[in-house]
């Protein structure tokens, strides 16, 4: 896809388009990625001058969900943003939740970075949804589309559910007990834009501030609940976690429940209402007895 001979790479196309958009003053800045200092790292960056466009990179390393930056860049005017499948789904949610305005965004769609790997054809990124490599909402598409993968079977969740309740609890607590409460998961998540997070509330203090299991588990379970119907399974939280906690297990389980109960897959369309933010007469109500 990328380095085919004689073909313009996706990265080159992104640079060219960023330059044009800035020169024509169609956007005030382009939110993308630049080279990082350590091998294998890239850094989210905001390019404001056409001549800086060549600092933009796009390849398999560009896994951050750039939508997380959009709510706090609201004051910057109209922004262009590089968006793969999961990022575009997060943007859809942010628009629906009134955090960004559609008309203030110019979405440059690309196939997921995992499909821009230099030498492999079988991308596999831990903790990332296999559902949507291509953007669901964009103003233009740069580079080729990736082949749509088979529908997500949530085999990982099914396997976890086969364990006994005791085994599940043990695995969850062992995993979450490594949490150091740095909130890298929350801060890297496009859904977490609350001005004051429930864990930061001190009057009343809903959640203890220690790293005791009871406090960390409370935080993660409450966060997962807040993700219901909103998480797009981009995996940004799990990749941000310095302690290697498998955060997607909780998020994917919640996403699966929402899919099964409401027939809703998060962030796929601007038109469908958020399932937990609306009431419909055909909602399942068998829990009311």
């Amino acid at each position, binding site marked *: 896809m990328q380095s085919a001979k004689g073909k313009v790479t996706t990265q080159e196309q992104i640079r060219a388009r960023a330059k044009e958009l800035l020169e024509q003053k169609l956007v005030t800045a382009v939110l993308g990625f630049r080279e990082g200092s350590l091998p294998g790292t890239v850094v989210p960056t905001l390019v404001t001058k056409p001549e800086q466009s060549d600092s933009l990179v796009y390849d398999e390393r560009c896994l951050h969900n750039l939508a997380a930056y959009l709510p706090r860049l609201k004051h910057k005017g109209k922004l262009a943003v590089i968006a793969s499948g999961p990022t575009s789904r997060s943007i859809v949610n942010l628009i629906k939740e009134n955090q960004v305005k559609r008309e203030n965004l110019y979405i440059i769609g690309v196939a997921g970075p995992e499909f821009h790997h230099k030498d492999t054809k079988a991308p596999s990124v831990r903790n990332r949804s296999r559902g949507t490599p291509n953007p669901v909402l964009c103003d233009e598409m740069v580079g080729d589309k990736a082949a749509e993968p088979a529908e997500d079977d949530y085999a990982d969740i099914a396997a976890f559910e086969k364990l006994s309740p005791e085994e599940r609890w043990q695995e969850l607590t062992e995993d979450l007990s490594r949490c150091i409460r740095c909130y890298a998961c929350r*801060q890297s998540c496009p859904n977490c834009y609350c001005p004051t997070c429930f864990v930061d509330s001190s009057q009343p203090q809903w959640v203890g501030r220690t790293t005791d299991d009871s406090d960390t588990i409370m935080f993660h379970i409450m966060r997962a609940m807040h993700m219901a119907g909103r998480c797009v399974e981009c995996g940004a939280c799990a990749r941000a976690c*310095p302690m290697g906690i498998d955060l997607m297990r909780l998020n994917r389980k919640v996403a699966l429940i929402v899919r099964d109960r409401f027939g809703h897959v998060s962030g796929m369309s601007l038109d469908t209402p958020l399932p937990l933010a609306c009431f419909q007469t055909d909602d399942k109500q068998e829990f009311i007895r």
Partner: protein
Amino acid sequence: MTSRIVTKKDFSRFVAGLAKQAELWAPMKLKDADGSRFGRVKDAREVCFDYLNTKLPVKELFFPQRELLFTFKTGTRESVQPPQPVAERIVLGVRPCDAAALLLFDRVFMAEPLPADRQPLSAKEDRKSEIVDCRSFVDPYYQQRREKTTLVGLACNEPGPACFCTALAGSPHGSAGLDLLLVDIDERYLAVPTTDKGEKLVTGLPEAKKADEEKAKQLAEAAGKTMKFALDMAGLKSRLDQGFESDAWDELALPCVNCGVCTYVCPTCHCFDVTDEEHKGKGARLRTWDSCQFALFTRHASGHNPRPTGKDRMRQRTLHKFRYFPEAHAGLGHDPDRRHVGSCPAPLMLCVGCGRCIVECPAGIDLRETLCTLEERIKDAVQTAECKVQKAK
């Protein structure tokens, strides 16, 4: 003091010997995740020396993320109970950067009272003894752990791509702050004691030969050479004095998501929060790590926040390390008994160059890049300003 030799064949026996003398702590592999962390060793085989840096620095053994200050029963003063005293400990496998960081911690948590000639002049004669300076406070929790712990270091022969201890007066084979330093020389460890406490751990072991010490010296030199980053720290500090309002901060703070990773994995970050937890008349006062990157960190009771944006908080962390701390600790003398950083040329930065913040940053921010950008941009801004002044004249 005489250097000695521990062969790798005998290493588990050496470790088991240490475990008999005191509680033994060492880096251990994390379960189900990459990396290692200091843990209580029950079996010598659990010790993992295959690490560049532990995920969390050794500070967590002296300044734990969750610390019980005391327990209480509501309604009575008498029922306040201090926590259990800490046992004697040996910590094995401390990297020289982490040990150097503890010397900085000592300045914060247990510096001695200021001598009379450094007391503020305005203080009244009879009140002098009551004056509490931030540098005269001794934290009993930290002090107890520090005094009951013997530190056994492990020299770095292969620093990583994010390491830059040499830029901060450190060394991959440095022994400052340690009681004993182990250097991996092929099939053996060269054990270099730096204190009596350290020497006791290796008495009876065979003495090192000159060739062993020579080999260690070569390794130290080679390791030092792999770290290319160098910055004139005194110059940087004066630049930062001028650059609080520099527009470079906007750019540098853009990728920062304001999580607390950099502060929690940092061996020198030491901010904390204190909370009370109470249930049915029984309670506890707890001290937990806090981070200047969080919005709550400086929010006043009135609701006003002097550092409302991510940029303010990112700048705060950088300036605390490279401007405020060196300012607060400038000119404080070297005290050999307390093993403070003595040979460290001023200014004394609140950073030891372990590189953890660079490796773990979810946005890929590199502190070295940040410092270089600031240095350049502030220099440019100052020069432009000077030009303007000259032209105006």
